[in-house]
């Protein structure tokens, strides 16, 4: 890279950051002024963030290659008569990918680190091209994937997809519409396997259905308009997320399954005794847990898949190994069957420090997961010696550390009253010095602001909403607090409760082990709030306890990232309280919303109610109208400050990429988002080892 910063330049930045951290507890004012005095040079982060780029699909069938080539390891098997020739394996209508830089070479093992059986996403995100539809590398335009084409009916009540002719499962069996119908009838409608309908496959609370037209044509139908459904098929959702990701770890979603293989584990196709016997013989307590294990691509090497690589050594061992799928549907523009890389080998790291140190030592060829932003100095120091490059991929979500105020809080009426007061929340937000947080915990590479997503996202309400109520203004904050009746202070300058029970104390609940250090961030905010006379108590807890307290409505303010909220309708959980599994703005509200008012307790705040109603109306709206709805919702969320954003649009989550110099076709920058299945939108099947 021509723009390598010198080590001294970097160390200076790092020293400022480290100094900020060290002094934060004692002298927040001093560090703030030190940072203010810093020369406004190009930041290290800007130099490590390249141009957004990626491979593109060739959609014009006239330009598709007519002759195909294959990897040497497969050519040998063809020679030995163990595999049919490549022309018979690649679909008649393949997915043609134009690699980012050049046609690659076959071979090599991609070394990575993973953290154990719970880290399935580590591999899922590499092989996600088994999704029905996908996004282009920018993460904004829907592209074909497993489906060659799609068509939405004018009334929005159905989407028809066409499959690729001649496409096959990894064992050579044809992949057809029957695999969709099988999943719908035998898995999705089977109450033992999927007890209740999934919201991703519903419109207006009513479940959809799947119908076969012919072997390569499938229709998804709904009773009410569902214009969102194309996005759902392309998003990281239960219905469009692909077999690998969605039929995993107990889930049975994904919209299709290899019928010819899965049938043998279903009682319907043998008998209940037979299925139970099989399960018991394999050491499982029943057929349900056995079949769930059998359709999990990371656990079961025998499972037929559509992904570029398939598991050969399962995830619940110290080394998770994937090997190329000889029937993968993708080819490059010269007709070489993808992927270029033979094998992916992920070694278990018992803790993140070891994983990061191994990345520094060059023991991984490409790693963007679990690599910590705080380790950037060490990564940069060793990159020349070890032979790798560091690239930062900023995310699109507004805030990696969001203060979520509980809008259903009741336990302490005085605190509840303030948390439910707009001006109080605005004052808290204006009392935060986001630039100091950014320098200290994001090495200056994040962007300070509200919870609103990046302007590059069509849902964005506009740049001014990144700033609204979200810049440091101690004077106005104090004025607001005085105005709402919190004017009385104690001897130390802290504001007093109005019920005479002493000092007003807010509880900031944080969880250990987040991608950015939420507890330390909360501690710094606590120091900053001294200037507006608000006392905060930071309470760190283990992750499960954190969520248990949220679920039982005990938290006042909880810190969490708002990742995924950039695609509001596909993943609303971190923006609005509507999913009881994780409702940081108030579990009772989410229960009320999810049950249509039958359970839980609705909010009193009319603007929150209107935001929730607008959200509910979105499925039935066409794309452009839907964008408008999202923008209106974001305006309410920022204006009301239910969630107080701090620093976001940063590479802190899965955006610190360590890339070996040996690899080719690696984008300078890639879209970092859940719906883009980063790094899958860069088509890892086109990555290769140069000579």
């Amino acid at each position, binding site marked *: 890279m021509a723009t390598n910063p010198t080590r001294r330049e970097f160390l200076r930045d790092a020293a400022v950051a480290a100094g900020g951290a060290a002094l934060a507890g004692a002298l927040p004012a001093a560090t703030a002024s030190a940072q203010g005095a810093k020369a406004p040079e190009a930041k290290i982060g800007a130099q490590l963030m390249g141009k957004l780029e990626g491979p593109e699909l060739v959609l014009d069938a006239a330009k598709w290659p007519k002759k195909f080539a294959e990897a040497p390891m497969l050519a040998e098997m063809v020679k030995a008569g163990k595999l049919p020739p490549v022309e018979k394996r690649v679909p008649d209508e393949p997915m043609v990918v134009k690699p980012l830089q050049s046609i690659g070479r076959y071979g090599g093992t991609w070394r990575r680190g993973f953290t154990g*059986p719970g880290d399935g*996403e580590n591999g899922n995100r590499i092989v996600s091209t088994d999704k029905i539809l996908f996004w282009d590398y920018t993460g904004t335009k829907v592209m074909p994937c497993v489906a060659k084409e799609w068509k939405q009916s004018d009334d929005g009540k159905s989407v028809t997809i066409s499959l690729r002719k001649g496409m096959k499962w990894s064992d050579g069996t044809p992949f057809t519409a029957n695999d969709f119908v099988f999943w719908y009838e035998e898995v999705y409608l089977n109450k033992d396997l*999927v007890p209740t309908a*999934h919201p991703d496959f519903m419109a207006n609370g009513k479940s959809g259905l799947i119908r076969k037209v012919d072997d390569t044509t499938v229709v998804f139908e709904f009773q009410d308009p569902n214009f969102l459904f194309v996005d759902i098929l392309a998003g990281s959702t239960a219905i469009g997320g692909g077999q690998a990701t969605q039929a995993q770890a107990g889930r049975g979603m994904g919209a299709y399954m290899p019928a010819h293989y899965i049938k043998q584990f279903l009682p319907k196709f043998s008998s209940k005794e037979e299925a139970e016997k099989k399960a018991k013989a394999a050491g499982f307590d029943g057929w349900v847990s056995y079949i769930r294990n059998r359709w999990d691509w990371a656990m079961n090497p025998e499972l037929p898949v559509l992904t570029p690589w398939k598991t050969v050594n399962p995830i619940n061992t110290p080394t998770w*190994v994937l090997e190329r799928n000889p029937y993968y549907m993708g080819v490059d523009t010269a007709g070489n069957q993808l992927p270029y890389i033979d094998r992916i080998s992920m070694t278990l790291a018992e803790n993140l*420090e070891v994983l990061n140190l191994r990345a520094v030592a060059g023991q991984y060829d490409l790693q963007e997961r679990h690599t910590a932003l705080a380790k950037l100095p060490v990564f940069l120091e060793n990159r020349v010696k070890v032979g790798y490059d560091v690239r930062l991929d900023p995310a699109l979500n507004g805030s990696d550390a969001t203060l979520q105020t509980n809008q259903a809080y009741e336990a302490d009426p005085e605190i509840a009253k303030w948390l439910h007061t707009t001006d109080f929340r605005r004052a808290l937000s204006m009392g935060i010095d986001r630039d100091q947080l950014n320098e200290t915990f994001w090495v200056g590479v994040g962007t300070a602001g509200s919870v609103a997503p990046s302007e590059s996202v069509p849902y964005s309400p506009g740049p001014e909403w990144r700033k609204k109520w979200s810049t440091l203004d101690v004077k106005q904050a104090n004025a607001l607090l005085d105005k709402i009746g919190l004017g009385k202070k104690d001897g130390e300058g802290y504001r007093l409760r109005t019920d005479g029970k002493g000092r007003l104390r807010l509880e900031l609940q944080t969880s250990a082990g987040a991608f950015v250090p939420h507890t330390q961030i909360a501690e710094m905010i606590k120091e900053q709030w001294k200037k507006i006379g608000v006392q905060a108590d930071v309470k760190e807890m283990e992750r499960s306890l954190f969520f*248990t307290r949220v679920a039982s409505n005990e938290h006042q303010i909880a810190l969490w990232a708002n990742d995924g909220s950039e695609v509001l309708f596909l993943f609303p959980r971190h923006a609005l309280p509507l999913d009881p599994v994780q409702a940081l703005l108030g579990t009772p509200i989410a229960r009320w919303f999810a049950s249509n008012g039958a359970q839980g307790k609705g909010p009193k705040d009319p603007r929150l109610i209107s935001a929730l109603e607008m959200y509910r109306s979105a499925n039935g709206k066409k794309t452009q109208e839907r964008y408008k709805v999202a923008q209106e919702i974001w305006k309410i969320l920022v204006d009301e400050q239910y969630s107080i954003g701090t620093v976001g649009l940063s590479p802190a989550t899965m955006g610190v990429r360590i890339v070996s110099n040996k690899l080719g076709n690696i984008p300078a920058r890639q879209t970092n988002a859940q719906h883009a299945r980063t790094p899958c939108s860069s088509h890892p099947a086109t990555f290769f080892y140069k000579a």
Partner: protein
Amino acid sequence: MLAYLARRLILALLTTWAVSVLAYVVIQLPPGDYITSYIAQMSASGSFVSLQEAETLRQQYGLDKPIWVQYMRWMGMVMQGNFGMALEWHRPVSEVIGDRLWLTMAVSGAAILLTWLVALPIGIYSAVRQYSVGDYVATFIGFIGLAVPSFMLALVLMYLGFTLFDMNIGGLFSDEMALAPWSWAKAWDLIKHLPLPAVILGLAGTAQLIRIMRANLLDELRKPYVVTARARGLSEWHVILKYPVRVALNPFASTVGYLLPYVVSGSIIVSLVLSLPTVGPLLLRALVAQDMFLAGTIVLLLGVMTVIGTLISDLLLMWIDPRIRLEGRK
């Protein structure tokens, strides 16, 4: 003697049962269950679980039943030699632990061996040559070994190993060997990786052992029977090794009880830092994930090992030390 043994055995069984109940209760004490921690883990890693999925999983794992029902179910299985499925690993608990047990024993065994080989001679030397230069040096190093936290030492050594010698970071095998079936080449690979963890794990123990050995031996050396032996004209080393050292070894026999569980679990923190595939990190993980089958089984295993170890050390002491034997008879 037999009656004594039988009584001890029955007590041991009862203790083991109490350990199993306690283990189960303690693991269930934190709020939430495996599914809560699973949801938390998923959302922290950029994935998610729906409410329906969570409920299905809860039913599948029987987590919706009261705790005593879950315990009885587990105990029923344990009685039949089935320790259940490790929830996070989706494999039988016995397999998950079995994979790591031998490696754990290799690492802990190497550490213990190293500790004894280094500590006993130095301990004897610094007692016999009390206040000599050698004694001071050994004491100095010993205290440093005691004072430096071993996980810190592990991190420093690992970083130095990488920057100075280009060594692999952590683990017990090189990348190529990790997946290979057992062979001499793989065993040699393991032996090559053992010294670093063995030194780190052994260091604190070594320092402690040197101090104990030195103190015990100093006590013994001043006793009249040593003077008598010298007066009888026995060679100096014969005098020391034959009698006082044997008596000074007495406390070691009584620590066998703690050694056995250590051998099967290893040190949790150091194993975690060095990314050793041993039982220690597995236990920590299982506790965090609230995987009560896996955590329960490991804790039960540790309990059984402690009970057996204590039994062995009681018997050993009786055998070595006539004074204890005589009290037993009264």
